[in-house]
């Protein structure tokens, strides 16, 4: 061996482990070469392993291909890398090749997986089964087929479902939806706990950004995700008034103090306690829950639900000390806490800074809502109430006031309804319930007598140029003052962080505490963390929950003395699924009307603080869950993770790139199948019982989907089967002038097998030429004639469905009577054409690897040098140079192996 050569990792790399690739690899392995066999799917075996039997001997495809699979997989000289894609191949000057490749994330540790199939069994998402050519569905967690090598599961994930991606706490909405669909409500609840512990509150009061981003919006309307959550959380809480768990077994000695029992504090406490830390929450109010309890009206979120949600946290041993206002985080550390999380929220009212704000009868919305919820609010029955503001926090007091019997409730807003930051449905709800909107109006002062409010003097406004937020700026119309007599004014003009006690102790800006965005750790004291509204300003409940969860993760690391550089689980999110692609796939889905949560009638709703949204029935919830389009494929319901006995499922798995040097390369990436839908008049894709030849093979395979030959539309045993040859082959209309080379033979095989499976069925083959050219092939064709298969020389021109469900096949009768013929059949099989697999060209510099005029890889000299491409040292085996049957593929693969071997001798002397 010459010494100036680069050291190679393998003598030969074979790309594509179908029949050709396995044969090439085995041949080279037998000669003593070290071979790397790369396959992009999760099993080797290619298309042939999916066949029923093979012509002309009618051996089981399994019997032919499994030995080849085993030979490749167990060969001492062959390494098989499945689920791996080659990205780039470059020829080195010494004749070797530099290869870049990556193993795709399968989310299953192939080495640990035993192929037990439990993940597949429990998986809640189904997709069309490409291994059965979409005749049936398979699970997203799946072992491709029973004879797969290696027999390991793979989980399909094409991206993060938009709902999950958009959720600030990445609650696996797609996951719990799929669990509800499967009737597993407890599992749905437990899944929710992984990302947010306050399930009941979110089910009622979350603004549900997931719904705004739902792909189904592109069809009819969002999936009512929150409604589904409401269903399972109510269902679960009814079954389980108390949590099913207690404190975790492995209790640590570390003590954590949390200031504030709002969503952020509760969430942090929950996840810290789950990790065994001793957590105490300090709450200034009399009861825990923060804004959940005090600010959200009972008609939306009753206190019992907040109580039950809090039990999720306290059951873990978290202690909540109410009526305890903490004024310094440092003092808590002195009391013995190892770390502190400040989550005091943002419930301090802003004021307008105009006259009369201190009058009795003018109050902030937080105060109003809080008093309303605890039953301490002023009596406004029959009175006039003005709410100032246009956000959601204006809608709540307005709608509460209606329920309290106010005669007139007016929302005064300085811009118009279009600019209101409140959700449109909130504004609609308020108006429906009788709230009046007063647009383009702003208080100038509150007027009163004896310290008591009597009216509001306001100014008319007009809209000017857009401001930074893009909304048009309100401008005062000078001299437009007028006065409105009112009994109560509620100011809903904004909230500010409740941080007065901490602004000096912790770095802050404009009243907001500052902490590291990723870790929520504060600068001055690394054991003090801060998060939630006191850091972010008021946002959604689920944002605060996300902050708490994040804080818990990094506090846990801090308390364990580990580096805070570690990624949080959000860092492992995939990219958001391309919704257009999902919608494109689903373009033929029938519309499904959404199931709406039933609402209390308007008249009743106005009189009571009882929830106006009622819960879906089980049936409704499951029906609604069925509208989910499984955007991410895997929904991340985590059932597989829970059930896997080998602990081999890992959603944090990422692509693994690899670079290596090989002495020679053989490409054997096979061919593509032409979509017969391209021949529109033949009805494929429109008429359910017009199937293609590959599907017919699956119907006849030992591992067939229906365990019998049945037609897909109604499961009937077909009695009159048409097999139509040359669809998309020898056909310029689909730009494929080539003969598919194997269609005649596999169709004759189908005919014979069908006659075996359904002895009473009539089988007619419509053909142009029967190309039975290989060893024993013509004899096989003659044999099928002898069995009674009818051969009609004629080209099918149109297939239409009759009212009885059968198909009328119109064909050009080339013999017999001549002219146009028509026949009725109850199953039509289209023998499809094939196309080149052009992926290989992308592995090289543009134009480097030459194609023939039909875009197959070009053999430079098919007569004298089979398997050789224009690149020295790069060889092609099997159908990549032109579709061929198994015997011809095997021979060609042998030739490619010989070429590679002689090349290695020549370049590397081995």
């Amino acid at each position, binding site marked *: 061996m010459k010494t100036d050569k680069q050291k190679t990792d393998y003598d030969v790399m074979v790309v594509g482990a179908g029949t050709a690739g396995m044969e090439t690899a085995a*041949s*080279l392995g*037998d*000669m*003593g070469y070290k071979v790397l066999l790369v396959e992009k799917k999760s099993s080797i075996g290619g298309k042939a392993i999916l066949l029923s039997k093979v012509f002309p001997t009618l*051996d089981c495809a*399994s*019997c*032919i291909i499994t*030995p*080849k699979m*085993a030979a490749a*997989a*167990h060969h001492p000289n062959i390494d098989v890398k499945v689920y791996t894609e080659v990205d780039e191949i470059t020829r080195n000057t010494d004749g070797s090749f530099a290869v870049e490749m990556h193993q795709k994330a399968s989310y299953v540790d192939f080495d640990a997986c035993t192929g037990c199939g439990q993940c597949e069994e429990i998986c809640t998402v189904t997709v069309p089964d490409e291994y059965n050519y979409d005749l049936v569905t398979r699970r997203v967690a799946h072992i491709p087929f*029973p*004879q*797969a*090598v*290696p*027999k390991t599961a793979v989980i399909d994930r094409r991206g993060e479902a938009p709902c999950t991606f958009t959720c600030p706490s990445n609650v696996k909405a797609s996951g719990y939806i799929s669990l509800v669909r499967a009737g597993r409500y407890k599992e749905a609840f437990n899944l929710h706990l992984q990302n947010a512990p306050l399930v009941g509150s979110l089910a009622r009061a979350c603004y549900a950004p997931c719904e705004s981003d739902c792909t189904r919006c592109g069809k009819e309307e969002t999936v009512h995700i929150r409604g589904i959550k409401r269903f399972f959380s109510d269902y679960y809480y009814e079954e389980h008034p108390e949590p099913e768990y207690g404190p975790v077994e492995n209790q640590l000695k570390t003590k954590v103090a949390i200031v504030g029992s709002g969503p952020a504090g509760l969430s942090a406490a929950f996840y810290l306690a789950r990790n065994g830390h001793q957590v105490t929450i300090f709450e200034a109010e009399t009861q825990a829950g923060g804004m959940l309890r005090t600010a959200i009206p009972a008609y939306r979120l009753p206190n019992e639900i907040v109580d039950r949600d809090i039990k999720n946290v306290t059951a873990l041993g978290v202690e909540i000390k109410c009526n305890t206002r903490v004024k310094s985080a440092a003092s808590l550390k002195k009391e013995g806490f190892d770390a502190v999380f400040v989550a005091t929220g943002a419930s301090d009212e802003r004021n307008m800074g105009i006259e009369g704000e201190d009058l009795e009868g003018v109050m902030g919305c937080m105060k109003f809502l809080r008093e309303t919820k605890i039953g301490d609010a002023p009596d406004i029955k029959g009175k006039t109430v003005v709410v100032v503001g246009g956000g959601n926090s204006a809608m709540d007091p307005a709608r509460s006031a209606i329920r309290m019997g106010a005669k007139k409730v007016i929302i005064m807003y300085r811009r118009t309804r279009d600019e209101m930051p409140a959700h449109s449905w909130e504004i609609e709800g308020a108006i429906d319930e009788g709230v009046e909107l007063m647009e383009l109006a702003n208080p100038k002062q509150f007027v009163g007598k004896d310290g008591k409010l009597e009216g509001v003097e306001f100014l008319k406004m007009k809209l000017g140029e857009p401001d930074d937020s893009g909304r048009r700026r309100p401008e005062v119309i000078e001299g437009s003052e007028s006065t409105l007599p009112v009994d109560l004014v509620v100011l809903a003009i904004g909230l500010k962080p409740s941080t007065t006690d901490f602004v000096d102790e912790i770095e802050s800006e404009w009243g907001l505490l500052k902490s590291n965005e990723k870790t929520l750790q504060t600068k001055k004291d690394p054991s003090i963390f801060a998060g939630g509204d006191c850091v972010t300003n008021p946002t959604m409940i689920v944002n605060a929950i996300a902050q708490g969860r994040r804080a818990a993760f990094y506090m846990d690391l801090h308390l364990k003395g580990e580096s805070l550089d570690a990624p949080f689980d959000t860092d492992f999110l995939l990219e958001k699924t391309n919704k257009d692609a999902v919608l494109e796939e689903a373009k033929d889905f029938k519309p499904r009307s959404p199931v709406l949560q039933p609402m209390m009638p308007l008249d009743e709703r106005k009189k009571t603080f009882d929830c106006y949204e009622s819960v879906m029935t089980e049936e409704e919830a499951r029906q609604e869950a069925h509208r989910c389009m499984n955007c991410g494929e895997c929904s991340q319901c985590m059932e597989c993770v829970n059930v896997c006995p080998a602990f081999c499922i890992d959603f944090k798995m990422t692509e693994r790139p690899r670079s290596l040097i090989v002495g020679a390369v053989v490409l054997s990436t096979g061919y593509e199948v032409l979509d017969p839908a391209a021949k529109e008049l033949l009805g494929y894709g429109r008429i359910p019982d017009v199937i293609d030849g590959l599907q017919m093979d699956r119907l006849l395979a*030992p591992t067939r989907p229906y365990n019998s030959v049945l037609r897909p539309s109604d499961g009937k045993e077909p009695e009159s089967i048409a097999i139509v040859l040359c669809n998309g082959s020898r056909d310029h209309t689909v730009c494929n*002038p080539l*003969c598919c*080379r194997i269609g005649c033979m596999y169709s004759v095989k189908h005919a014979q097998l069908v006659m075996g499976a359904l002895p009473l069925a009539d089988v007619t083959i419509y053909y142009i*030429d029967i*190309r*039975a*050219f*290989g*060893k*024993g*092939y*013509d004899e096989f064709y003659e044999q099928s004639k002898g069995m009674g298969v009818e051969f009609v*020389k004629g080209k099918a021109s149109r297939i239409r469905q009759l009212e009885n469900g059968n198909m009328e096949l119109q064909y050009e009768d*080339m*013999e017999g009577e*001549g002219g146009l013929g028509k026949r009725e059949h109850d199953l039509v099989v289209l023998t499809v054409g094939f196309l080149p697999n052009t992926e290989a060209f992308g592995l090289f510099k543009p134009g480097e690897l030459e194609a*023939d005029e*039909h875009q*197959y890889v070009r053999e430079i000299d*098919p*007569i*004298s040098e*089979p398997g050789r491409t224009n690149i020295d040292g790069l060889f092609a085996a099997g159908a990549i140079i*032109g579709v*061929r049957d*198994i*015997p*011809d593929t*095997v*021979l060609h*693969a*042998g*030739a490619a*192996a*010989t070429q590679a*071997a*002689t090349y290695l*001798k*020549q370049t590397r002397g081995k």
Partner: protein
Amino acid sequence: MAQKRRIGVYVCHCGGNISDYVNVEEVADAVRNDPNVVVSRTHMFTCSDAAQQEMIDEIKEKQLDGLVIASCSPKLHMFTFRGMSERANLNQYQYIHVNLREQCSWVHTNDKVGATKKGIHLLRAGIAKCELTVPLNAIRIETKPRVLVVGAGVSGMRAAISLADMGLAVFLIEREAEAGGWALQTGKMGPEAQDGTDVVAKLLTRINQHENIMLHTSAEVVSKSGSIGDFNVSVRLPGDETVSLNVGAIVVTTGFEPYTPQTDEYGWGAPGVIPLKDFRQMLAEADGPLMHNGKPVRDVAFIYCVGSRQLKSESCPEPNSYCSRYCCLATTYTATLLHDLEQKTGQPVNQYHLYRDVRTYGALEPIYEKARTGGAIFLRWDPSNPPQVTTEGDQLTVKAKDHLLGGEELEIGADLVVLATGMRPRENDTLNDILKIPESKDGFYNEIHLKLRPVETMIDGVFIAGTAQGPKTLAESVASSLAAVAKTGGLLMKGYVDLEPLIAKVDTDKCIWCGECLKACPYGAIEKVNVGEKEIAFVIESMCKGAGPCVPVCPHNAIEIEGFRDDQITAMIDASIKELETK
């Protein structure tokens, strides 16, 4: 009675191939409590990787010392499971294969109860045999890094070059005086548009320059002895000189014989009725208009499938029922060559192609299309009504029915009738007697399995390629010859080969050398040797195939085949009728 064994029994569903007709669970249950059976269970596909892994784990965990798998034919998977046994550290010869598919389920599809009973009997016999197995080791033979290639057509020449490139010494022999074979007579060939003589010339240059290749023309094999890895072949060279070659493998690329029509078959014998190859020669030689009998050729009729796809009839008692594969390509390509000539010379030639199915498969289709669009008329005939060729003076007339015109009878006047004659297996009795390669029904050499082992033959170490195995185009022939090279390389590049130890064994005490076994052995594997005073039979391990004709002829029961010993066979019979007795 044998010692206590620990046997694992696995019954295969074969994805329904077996379990649809045999109750495999019942079969597995029946033997589960047999004294030497430790485990008995079923698998959907015992051959699948996952099932193999489970069995391996179980063999190791339960420390099994015998294995019985009831599945398909041993021809398919015996080696699969032997390999698996080795991976489980179980001697592969303590594995017994029971054929529950070809010998049970597939032949009793209408009687599940009966088939299940039979399955149990077969399995019991297998277990009984397994109980008496002993660990055996393969017989390792050193292989010779030399190859004999028989037949120096393009396939053989190309194979020789690659074998030599791999570092093996190659003896390439050709019966004719010149290497090259039929390619020398084809002219330009489609679709690559290469001239056969050019192809041959280029290969010959490479061969002559290659230090590892020795080409002998006018040479024939006269005898062969030895076995895989180590053959001794005598070759007769010109001048009756005989050389003895010691080679590790033999690649047979003896090609085909063109079909010669019978007298009057499509007018054969009449002037102007010629085989395609002669017409091609005419085209190749034409440097102006195409002439026949001194007149320019105006009408040519091509008749396809001559000597191919024949149906059995009185006039054709031994039909060539196969398709000859190359002729549609060759004839349609000829049509395009004729078009080219028309273009060049301005001579109009009407072409009538009388075909049955035009089999320009795969990427050959555009040639057919080119022939059609160039103006060639294609007419289909049916074997029940073949074209009739008649002669009147110089004028040939072809009568045929045109199906497109509703079966109307056409009379085509033709200057030439070109017969697309098929391929026939080469008459090669001497070589066949020497090499003993089995033939398929069609008379071509038979491969072991079209898909699994397409270039290997039942004679280990003897490979076949090209049209000797069946009709092919030239490119396909070369691909197959390089596939044979790959297998040859796989055999010889390692330097050794492991042979089956399931061969004859002589009991030296009982043997009295009567010579009966020597007479019975077709492989020459028996020798007479002296052990002290005594003359006894000796088995040449590398030559014995374990076929067993020596066993029944021995008057003293002194010879047995390992793996098929008398005690094993008797035990199998006893076991398989056990249930019949106890009932």
